């Protein structure tokens, strides 16, 4: 029994892994309960994590267009699950059962001559559309100039560098802001021109376009025709120019950028018009390149302090809002600012553009208010201490990284459509998307996440962007699905590839239905614990964003009792204690878009231990793991912490080591053969950390600390406080480090849960 279960598990693990690799999909349940009632009893909803553009080096796109089901309400795409009558040249839609004629181009098909989309291994396939104008990618830099001199310098260098990374035909634009907002005209020779806007005035899109002189030709934007593309650049050429034409100019311009020249008196914050700057950026693109791939990249070094979208006043004596203020309803600008940015985000999303936010400052920068800009448009959000850090520099550089084909790892203006077979309906999605409000037969009335539609817009996405999509089984209990029946779901992602091609990626999956009563074990076995955890966590975070914190925790506690949840409860995604509102927003942002693996790390950080006693080993995320003679490496996704334990007892205590490390290095011990082990030990976690740093986006905060160091808090706040100052003596000193916290430990938490479980059972 055990063996078979194990085998089943193994099978399912493989299956899950295989599916993930091929389709970028992970379901919470891989065998579906066949009725609504049963599904509801499962507690964990039927849902999946979808990575629409998962990198598939082995999947070359096909250079033709997909074949659609002819039923207007269906329009599903021909897929391997369809039944095909080769002789009659007919195919039956597996969603609506409509029989469709193959188009003329398919006359030659037969059992042996199948188009790719009919082959089972092409459950995910990508089409390249031939029609439609190919407009270049657009990058609009929105740069804060209220920075410290070295910060600005670093930022300028990063921006200049980025010009060399952009595709040569990409259009770039530059908006700078401080007290005023300047839209720089890039086309001119000689004198550099910019349009300046007051930083305090909320302008409508039309006003902005009027003032920028973009409204002159009242030419309706007709993208369908081949001619117009020429006109677009013309109209907007002053502000958005191909990189290859103006990179010299722009480099100079960036080089000459001054810090905001307006004096900042003592006790004041610089006046920063982030809200207006963004508004103008959005307006500019809206007026010139609607529905083309464009990134607005906002670089800001502090909170907006004036105009619409201001987050805090310019008096330094009034600190920026904290969670405490928010709870007390004491954040006077928050609501208004949030509204402003939401409005912008929605407009941007409507236009198919995305907004990145790169916020580097020691204090908060208003991410809480601005988060929607990145969240709704699929933009990046990066938070750092300074632009003059590798965190920012490398993260920013990584934006322009390329894949195996030499293409940028970014896509624009995607539309994700989800089609389901009849037994299922779409309840919603959670991720960097906005609803397109398309009602269809497969849209559920119950919403989970962003619901009420089966199409979403994802303005910016990359190969790791992952959405959680939630379904509802609608089959009635008394109308069972035939034995062996399968439910199907088709994900159709239409997007602008970074090569400017329009592409459609289609993923069609099917899962077995199972009767929960008779086949519970099957269903159980096909449960994907990790996916479920992440999906539930997303739901939790989604609710946390929109509801009061404690309620969410209670809801989550009611819903799920697993190991993860202990950490999830303590994670910054749900717990705001010790985090600023900006940090919370930042963490949640990434949680809602990273793929499963990363999400898991976020929920439950990974802890490795290095010692002279053996190879590095993963250890429990528990205070008991903090031992004196260990070097610990923790990866929380956002931080990489290297922690040198203290050592008094062992032969050569770490404490001594720490104290003397500099001398040893000076003496060159690590270079001496006899001390090579020391060198290796020192080096090993660094190498591992480096490896993680290399791969991750955004670049994590890299912390190298030791016992007693102030930065050790990053580690201490994560581990399970199995030893605290309360029970320290009960556990004995040598076993670990006590954590000074009132939080309950996992043990206590579990005990409590057990009690709860029992009592609720009664």
């Amino acid at each position, binding site marked *: 029994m055990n063996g078979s279960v194990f085998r089943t598990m193994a099978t399912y693990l493989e299956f899950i892994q295989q599916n993930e690799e091929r389709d970028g999909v992970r379901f919470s349940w891989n065998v579906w309960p066949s009725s609504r009632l049963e599904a509801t009893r499962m507690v964990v909803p039927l849902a999946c994590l979808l990575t629409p553009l998962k990198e598939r080096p082995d999947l070359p796109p096909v250079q033709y267009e997909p074949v659609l089901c002819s039923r207007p309400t269906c329009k599903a795409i021909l897929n391997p699950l369809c039944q095909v009558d080769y002789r009659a040249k007919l195919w039956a839609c597996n969603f609506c059962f409509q029989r469709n004629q193959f188009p003329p181009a398919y006359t030659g098909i037969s059992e042996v001559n199948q188009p790719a989309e009919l082959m089972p291994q092409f459950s995910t396939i990508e089409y390249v559309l031939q029609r439609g104008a190919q407009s270049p990618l657009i990058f609009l830099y929105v740069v804060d100039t209220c920075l410290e001199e070295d910060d600005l310098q670093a930022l300028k260098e990063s921006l200049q560098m980025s010009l060399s990374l952009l595709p040569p035909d990409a259009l770039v634009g530059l908006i700078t802001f401080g007290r*005023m907002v*300047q839209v720089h*005209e890039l086309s*001119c020779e*000689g*004198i*550099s*021109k*910019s*349009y*300046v*806007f*007051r930083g305090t*005035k909320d*302008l409508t899109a039309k*006003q902005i376009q*009027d*003032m*920028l*002189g973009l409204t002159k030709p009242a030419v309706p934007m007709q993208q369908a025709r081949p001619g117009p593309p020429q006109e677009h650049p013309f109209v907007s050429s002053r502000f958005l120019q191909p990189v290859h034409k103006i990179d010299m100019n722009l480099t100079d311009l960036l080089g*000459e950028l*001054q810090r905001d*020249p*307006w*004096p900042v008196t003592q006790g004041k914050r610089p006046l920063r018009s982030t809200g207006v700057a963004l508004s103008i950026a959005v307006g500019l693109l809206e007026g010139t390149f609607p529905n083309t791939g464009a990134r607005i990249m906002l670089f800001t070094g502090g909170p907006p302090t004036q105009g619409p979208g201001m987050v805090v006043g310019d008096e330094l004596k009034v600190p920026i809002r904290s969670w405490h203020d928010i709870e007390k309803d004491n954040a006077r600008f928050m609501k208004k600012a949030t509204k402003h940015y939401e409005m912008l985000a929605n407009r941007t999303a409507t236009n198919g553009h995305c907004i990145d936010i790169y916020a580097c400052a020691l204090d908060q920068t208003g991410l809480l208010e601005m988060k929607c800009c990145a969240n709704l448009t699929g933009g990046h959000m990066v938070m750092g201490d300074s632009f003059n850090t590798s965190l920012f520099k490398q993260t920013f550089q990584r934006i322009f990284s390329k894949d195996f084909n030499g293409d940028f790892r970014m896509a624009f203006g995607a539309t994700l459509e989800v089609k389901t077979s009849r037994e299922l309906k779409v309840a919603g999605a959670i991720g960097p998307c906005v609803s397109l409000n398309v009602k269809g037969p497969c849209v559920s009335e119950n919403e989970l996440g962003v619901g009420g539609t089966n199409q979403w817009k994802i303005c910016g996405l990359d190969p790791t962007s992952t959405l959680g999509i939630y379904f509802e089984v609608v089959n009635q209990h008394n109308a069972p699905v035939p034995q062996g029946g399968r439910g199907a779901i088709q994900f159709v992602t239409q997007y602008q590839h970074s090569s400017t091609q329009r592409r459609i990626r289609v993923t069609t999956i099917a899962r077995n239905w199972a009767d929960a009563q008779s086949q519970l074990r099957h269903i159980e076995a096909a449960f994907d614990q990790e996916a479920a955890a992440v999906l539930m966590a997303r739901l939790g975070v989604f609710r946390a964003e929109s509801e009061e914190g404690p309620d969410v925790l209670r809801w989550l506690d009611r819903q799920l009792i697993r190991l993860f949840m202990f950490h999830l409860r303590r994670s910054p995604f749900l717990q705001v204690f010790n985090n600023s509102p900006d940090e919370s927003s930042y963490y949640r942002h990434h949680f809602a878009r990273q793929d499963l693996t990363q999400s898991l790390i976020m929920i439950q950080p990974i802890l490795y231990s290095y010692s002279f006693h053996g190879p590095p080993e993963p250890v429990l995320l528990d205070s008991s793991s903090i031992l004196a003679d260990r070097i610990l490496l923790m990866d929380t996704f956002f931080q990489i912490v290297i922690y040198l334990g203290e050592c008094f007892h062992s032969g050569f205590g770490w404490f001594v080591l720490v104290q003397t490390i500099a001398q040893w290095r000076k003496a060159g011990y690590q270079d001496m053969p006899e001390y090579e082990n020391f060198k290796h030990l020192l080096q090993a976690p660094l190498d591992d950390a480096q490896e993680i740093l290399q791969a991750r986006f955004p670049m994590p905060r890299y912390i190298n600390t030791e016992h007693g160091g102030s930065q050790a808090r990053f580690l201490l706040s994560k581990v399970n406080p199995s030893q605290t100052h309360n029970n320290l003596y009960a556990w004995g000193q040598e076993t670990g480090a006590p954590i000074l916290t009132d939080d309950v430990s996992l043990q206590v938490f579990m005990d409590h849960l057990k009690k709860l479980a029992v009592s609720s059972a009664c």
Partner: protein
Amino acid sequence: MNVNQSAPPVPPFGQPQPVYQGYHQSSYGGQPGSTAPTTPYGAYNGPVPGYQQTSPPDYFKIKSLGIPGWFSGSVPKVISQSFSFCPLPSGVSRAPPSSEAPPASTAQAPCGQASYGQFGQGDVQNGPSSTVQMQRFPGSQPFGSVPLAPVVSQPTVLQPYGPPPTSAQVTAQLAGMQISGAVAPALPPVGLGYGSPASLASASGSFPNPGLYGSYPQGQAPPLSQAQGHLGAQPPQRSAPPQASTFTSPASGGPRMPSMTGPFLPGQGFGGPSLSQPNHVSSPPPQALPPGTQMTGPPGPPPPMHSSQQPGYQLQQNGSFGPARGPQPNYGSPYPGAPTFGSQPGPPQPLPPKRLDPDAIPSPIQVIEDDRNNRGSEPFVTGVRGQVPPLVTTNFLVKDQGNASPRYIRCTSYNIPCTSDMAKQAQVPLAAVIKPLARLPPEEASPYVVDHGESGPLRCNRCKAYMCPFMQFIEGGRRFQCCFCSCINDVPPQYFQHLDHTGKRVDAYDRPELSLGSYEFLATVDYCKNNKFPSPPAFIFMIDVSYNAIRSGLVRLLCEELKSLLDFLPREGGTEESAIRVGFVTYNKVLHFYNVKSSLAQPQMMVVSDVADMFVPLLDGFLVNVSESRAVITSLLDQIPEMFADTRETETVFAPVIQAGMEALKAAECAGKLFLFHTSLPIAEAPGKLKNRDDRKLINTDKEKTLFQPQTGAYQTLAKECVAQGCCVDLFLFPNQYVDVATLSVVPQLTGGSVYKYACFQVENDQERFLSDLRRDVQKVVGFDAVMRVRTSTGIRAVDFFGAFYMSNTTDVELAGLDGDKTVTVEFKHDDRLNEESGALLQCALLYTSCAGQRRLRIHNLALNCCTQLADLYRNCETDTLINYMAKFAYRGVLNSPVKTVRDTLITQCAQILACYRKNCASPSSAGQLILPECMKLLPVYLNCVLKSDVLQPGAEVTTDDRAYVRQLVTSMDVAETNVFFYPRLLPLTKSPIESATEPPAVRASEERLSNGDIYLLENGLNLFLWVGASVQQGVVQSLFNVSSFSQITSGLSVLPVLDNPLSKKVRGLIDSLRAQRSRYMKLIVVKQEDKLEMLFKHFLVEDKSLSGGASYVDFLCHMHKEIRQLLS
């Protein structure tokens, strides 16, 4: 005038002309035999005597000429003055009683006398007999002639001419106008008599005229005439009156005149004229005579002329006025005579014009010349209270000995009536024209700067007046009594000084504030905005780059010029470099700011399109030091024309531009000046947007005033903000069509800025003018962020202010900027009784920021006399200043009242002034005589010029913008500017020898003064014409224009070819020197006789009737007389 004119002049003219000759002759003759005349006068005097006495007190130059009156009045006076005996008798009769106050009754005579005497020009009196009279004639005659003319028809005129010799009596001249008629009759009979009268004239020659004019016509005349010997004339006058009426439009007036004057005239008239003559004569006589050629000719001969003219006046009044000037063809013939007048005098041949001879009425040219000759040679020392300074047209040096130089302050009167009742009676506005930062000639030192250290300038604790020479130190110097409010203040220890035996501080002469009329204090931080010492001011150049500006070449020209001009920003003292920072903005529908920070390789342009809510996009790098950012600025100025070369933007904004400049200064926390170069009506959607509302149909309606009012209140609000920031706006306009100057100039006006207008600007034609104005405007020294306060001693206070400034309360004149050309006219009213002993004091304190950013106080003090006798007032008036005030008053009036009302008000006021004089100061004389105070004898002619100026009486070719522009200009003009602006200077070029280095003597602005064989320059401070007569010698044409004949001269030419011959050099040199005298560059226009352009030119011949309906001088004089008589009755 109108009235008088009614009569058909022609016939009279014919008669008068002959008369003229006769007169001239007679006069000539008369002069020589001055004594002889006296006797005749003597007869007249008989009646006059009393008058004479009265007259003397009056001082005035008599202007009126009841024909009869004149004779009588004048005679007596003349007698009195010139010939004591004669006068005496006459004087006895009337004079005694009238003494000073002598009612207007015989005023004329007395006046004349009085004036002579009083004027202190006793000298004059001396000259009186012959010479004196001569001189007077010019002035006096004119006056007299007018009134007379109407009465006396032609015949009288003739006679008057005869008398004119006696003309000495200006009054006579005036009277002559009316009298002429009357006189004429006398003359005719006299015919021969003329000669005699003339002879008599020398002494009383004028009398005859007057007598003829006014008195004669009237019943009374006869006796007078008889008495005077003019009798003969008188009778005719009587007859004349009817004639007069016929002749002169004034016919009506004429008749009245006679009737009125009739009675008095006899004695008075005579006396008056005579007297007047003496007055005039005083200084001028000798000179006048010599110059005499034409004008001067008149003096000597003129007297006769005058007299003769007087009759002429009548004619003029009738129709002659117009015709005389030339308009009338009929007269044409006589005219020729006119020109010849000049010569005539010489050749005492008869031009028997019948009308009033223009030469007989007071001549501005003569007055100016006289003053130049009399007072130009010696410095004007300001130590004496209530001294009337030389005329603005006179070159003189000033020695500050305790009162402010007349370059800083001029008053309408230097002797203020002690009571408000007197002031009300006299109706003479009490006003001071103050030019606090006036430029001084190099010979005069600019005011000393006094530093009182940290405690700041010493002031009266109560009224806050600043320490000045009039403060009285008491108690051994431990205290001082404020001369303004009488408060007794302690002298701070550090300021203590002992007094000498006269009660004067021992150190009085070491301290400018104790010994000078003008000086400066260094202000302490208490005098600064926000209690912070100001930073150096900034200049911001704001350039319209719309299509029009680009196309006309303006932008390129301007940018090119700025490159070099920036080296000449005003600096202070010996500093190497100007402290002023500069900034640049270009604009059309949007604004472009430029960052020209020195560290930049290239300027950066920042476009602000949010014109609805203007702001300044940058701070650092916008206002820069020229020398530091030179390279960037040059690069910018090079690129601006290129950048916009292809612009198609035709719409512009305006208010946002000013707003932007103001905000920029605000952001930089400094005061400064905006130079706006603007081309078109701002119709782009923005605050301050204007629409074309030019509607000529409104002219002469009650709504006409709207044309002068701003379209929207937005600009006032804006101006207020500018003033608060110390932001002065200078506006250069380059319109091709209506731009609504009335609205656009609101801000410059309220911020102490200037407006320059170049209609239909084309680089080729207007470049020099524009660049010259620009250079001057940029380089001139300016005070910023200024506040002016005028304090007065108890009894009077400043109640009204005119000029380019803003006032937020009733006492402080706020000037965002104030330069050396800007003038503020302040009107005073009584609020208590003044004391003759202590006089009245003015202290004008101007707090301002200098070009270098230094905060200073400039103080001007002026002490005036106070009088209990109206005569004193009239004797110490200054007509030029009066006109300055009246013009400003009227020009402001058009904002609120129909233009006609404004004109009527002016006329009424003028009539009241003169009537009051006549009533209270002149010796009794016939109402038919027009008697003008010596100091005001030009009032009518000048006032007429004001009345017919474009603002008050627009011609068809004058645009609404022009009127608004001029209205605005005049508001801040000083006295010299208004003087020449209203009465242009007309200089004959070929009359004087080429070698002479001096400016040729001017001639009166009348077409009849033009000889078609000559070339003339005419200038009024804004325009400069070169008029070429049709029969100018070829050689002259060749050497001036480098063409062979008159017909080849390009009409409208604006530059004279540079030729190497004496004439060309001289003319060009003259033009240059004229330009140098004016604050604005005058573009030259060459006008050929009989050419289309001549219309334009004729517009400036202000003594003539204008096309737009403006009266001729003579007509107006008559009209004035009529008004006066109405008042007197």
